[in-house]
């Protein structure tokens, strides 16, 4: 085996490729959000930097870099700087176990491999890995709030942490239905199973788990209607009140990366991922670029969910905090447990 045929080269290639695609994607997601907000409110949105504001993310980035750097007086300096870094690191780790493409059989052998898929790591317990990493993202917010030593920041951080852990419960329980139907924790195999059974959304327990999943995801990512962490009308902007310039931008980048990851995860778990409709399947049989058509379908599904986050944000008002906690604990949690009973019985009868 030559030195360049080792696994590590491929891993590095995948990481670099995904880094480029997703960081750029996060930039353009902000543009999409602002454009979307504009059209929802019957205005234009950003349209100065290039046609349709196409260079707006770049302009934003440069603007953030050129801002005055502020280190407030009463902060705990190490944690203050570590908090945005933790947010970004957890966001980056989160996408590492998402399979973005199926296995593609290459026409020629490249670097000692004849089939590859765009997934950095594939642990046996991929779904649990995702939840473990997303449970770490609480720390970025909690530390940002605590180290700032600002009343609004700390209140926002504590609120947001309590919210995230509450909804993490129904999130992790909602997945049980999907795992029951496939018998795997590995995301790749869950998608493969859907080529046999069809979309999980179309089964009875699958629909219920999708409903719980999507509501919890909105709360997990602190998006409207659950963005109590940064309720502008009462908390200024919540946990990142004291942050400015690129430290603030890091929080934003992390948030949008998380949204992208979760949009694609939803498409993978409930909407068949890269599986193509049955009439295309026979046509694409045996072609080496066949899987790429599937990837196209997958990207369209992912982008739809990315748009859904924007759509909901500009359509619904914010909940009150006690209402939010009631939804999580008194409605979603019993529903998630009922969903487990239902999927157990459904699979038993089937």
């Amino acid at each position, binding site marked *: 085996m030559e030195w360049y045929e080792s696994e590590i080269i491929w891993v590095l290639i995948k990481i670099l490729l995904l880094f480029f695609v997703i960081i750029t994607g996060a930039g353009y997601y902000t543009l999409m959000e602002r454009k979307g907000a504009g059209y929802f409110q019957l205005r234009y949105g950003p349209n100065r930097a290039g046609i349709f504001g196409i260079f707006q993310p770049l302009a934003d980035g440069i603007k953030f870099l050129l801002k005055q750097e502020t280190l407030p007086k009463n902060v705990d300096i190490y944690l203050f700087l570590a908090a945005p870094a933790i947010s*970004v690191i957890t966001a980056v780790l989160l996408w590492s176990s998402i399979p973005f493409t199926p296995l593609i059989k290459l026409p020629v052998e490249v670097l000692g491999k004849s089939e590859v898929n765009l997934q950095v790591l*594939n642990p046996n317990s991929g779904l649990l890995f995702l939840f473990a990493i997303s449970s770490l993202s609480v720390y970025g917010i909690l530390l940002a709030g605590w180290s700032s030593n*600002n009343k609004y920041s700390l209140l926002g951080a504590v609120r947001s942490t309590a919210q995230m852990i509450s909804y993490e419960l129904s999130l992790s329980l909602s997945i049980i239905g999907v*795992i029951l139907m496939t018998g795997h924790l590995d995301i790749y195999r869950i998608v493969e199973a859907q080529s046999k059974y069809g979309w999980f959304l179309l089964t009875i327990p699958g629909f219920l788990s999708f409903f719980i999943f999507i509501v919890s995801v909105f709360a997990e990512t602190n998006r409207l209607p659950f963005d109590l962490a940064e309720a502008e009308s009462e908390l200024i902007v919540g946990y990142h009140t004291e942050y400015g310039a690129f430290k603030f931008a890091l929080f934003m980048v992390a948030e949008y990366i998380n949204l992208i990851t979760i949009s694609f995860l939803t498409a993978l778990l409930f909407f068949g991922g890269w599986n193509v409709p049955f009439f295309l399947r026979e046509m694409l049989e045996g072609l080496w670029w066949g899987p790429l058509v599937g990837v196209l379908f997958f990207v369209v599904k992912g982008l739809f969910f990315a748009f859904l986050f924007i759509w909901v944000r500009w359509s619904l008002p914010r909940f009150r905090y006690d209402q939010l906690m009631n939804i999580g604990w008194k409605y979603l949690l019993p529903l998630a447990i009922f969903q487990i009973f239902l999927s157990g019985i459904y699979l038993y009868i089937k």
Partner: protein
Amino acid sequence: MVTDIWPVLIQFIFGAGFAALILILAHIIKPKLKKPSESHPETFECGIPFSGDARGMFNIQFYIVAMLFILFDIEAVFLYPWAVTFLKYKEIGAAGFILIEMFVFLIILLIGYFYIIKKGALDWEDPE
């Protein structure tokens, strides 16, 4: 297909490197002010001078939520191995047995859940 978890280390290094690079870059090319404003690094408090310390006492409800979260999270952890092997047990015809086993587990926990609801431990009331 990669079937190992070690690439997470490389991904971590890349993520940490990205964050550090950005923070250092922003520090280097920030505009240098000759005379920075004196009030700029003050802690923000809606325009009035900052008073006291932000790190005070909090509502005990947050603590209850965190505590209950741990307990239900551990319950969820036990559900994963069950969900993974359910189909395998079904193949050997033991699906009913394993189903009832988990239902007993869940029902015992549901008793706890109804206790919480009944005691009003999840109600966010006015602390006054």
